[in-house]
């Protein structure tokens, strides 16, 4: 999978997947275009799954406003 795909956020990837699927379903494409879309879509789906599988909730705490730095 390409580096470019790795950089996509989940939101971007799943959004692009939806658009890709719709374009492929829409037809009116050359075979080369269709194949490219198909491969792109499959990579996007894989990327989305990978992101979902690998995700771990991160929790971060802001310093309490108005309290001292020792808080």
């Amino acid at each position, binding site marked *: 999978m390409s580096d470019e795909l790795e950089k996509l*956020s*989940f*939101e971007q990837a*799943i959004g692009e*997947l*939806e658009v*890709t*699927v719709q374009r*492929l*379903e829409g*037809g009116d*494409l050359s*075979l080369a275009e*269709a*194949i490219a*879309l*198909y491969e792109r*879509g*499959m990579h*996007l*789906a894989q990327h*989305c*799954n990978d*992101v*979902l599988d690998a*995700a*771990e*909730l*991160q*929790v*971060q*705490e*802001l310093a*309490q*406003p*108005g309290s001292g730095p020792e808080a």
Partner: protein
Amino acid sequence: MQYQFPSFQPPSPDPDPQAPTHGVWTVSDLTLYIKERLELDPELMDLQLVGEISNLTRAASGHLYFTLKDAEAAISCVMWRAAAERLRWQPEHGAAALARGHISVYPPRGSYQLYVDDLKPAGLGDLHARFEELKGRLMAEGLFEAERKRPLPAFPRVVGIVTSPQAAALRDVLNVLHRRYPLARALLAPTQVQGDQAPPQIVAALQAIDARKDVDVILLVRGGGSLEDLWAFNDERVARAIAACRHPVVSGVGHETDFTIADFVADLRAPTPSAAAELAVPDRAELQQLIVTGKERLVAGMERRLAHVRQSLQENRRSLQRLSPYTRLATHRQQVDDLTQRASRALAYNLNLRRSALEGVEARLAALSPLATLDRGYAIVRLTDSGEVVRSTGQVCAGDVLAIRVKDGEFGAVAASGSQQESERVRE
């Protein structure tokens, strides 16, 4: 309560002194009649009224004139100097206040008003009244309007959480986020959620988290509690801080049945903290299903596409075949084959025909052949020298060598006698 409008025939048992004697009121009489009716009404004789102070004027005389209002209505109020001097606070325009007094009419203007004996800032003891007052006021300002509500992002990357770090509500929210959408980062802005210090802290926490550029949605949550426990979420400062947030805010305060001002101002109200987290993020399982569906649609789309291409390929190939010179050549070749076959068939037929004819002739020939006679025991005798067939004795001299033909062959013989001399041999 229903006001009794004066009739032209006043009630006879206790006729009002101002009642008209000839069926026609004077303005003063009617005003006095109404004034008395209001002053005698037990509900209106002594009442408490909560509302927002507006149009406040302090006359040179020391009397206070103002209006108490809420979202829909307003009532004129007057507080005489004696009562006004007893106030230990400064009523201001916009302040929520609780007035005590009675309703009466000011005849010169024909207006009913509240004659206030005591006026208090709407205090902690009047939580419900204050709630209604603030709610009415903010609603009038349009802070609860549906058009103000912003949509939540579909896939928030950073979820801001404004709550107490010790609270069970935080744990609930984090659990839900972890289970449903661990892609998100949870950013906690800690604050007290109860007590006098809570409202300014909540405001500060909201502002701090809203200032972050990476935040996509803010959850303002607190677990269940009494009306007093939840009171910070009915604070006007908190309400205005929510309204001022650039990012959408989801409120989840208390239980299903608890409604706070924060709920009304928030972009989305959730019944509980957990529900707030659920509303704020998509569900991982649903997303995975979405991806599976997406892949299926990709495959189906591709297969349809390929089938289409394959079909047109097939059609083109057929057309090509139809138009190919090789096809025509093959046709010609076949024509040649056809003709060749027909020719050889015709030839064979012809030959057969002739062969049959020949056989017929042969049969006839055979029937005429002397050989058939030989079969019956006759012999053909020829002179070996001349090959002449001997038909008469005159042809043979003694000593002539003869060839005798019988059915199955020939043998030689010498004539033992003859009818003539060699010299007199008859010539055929």
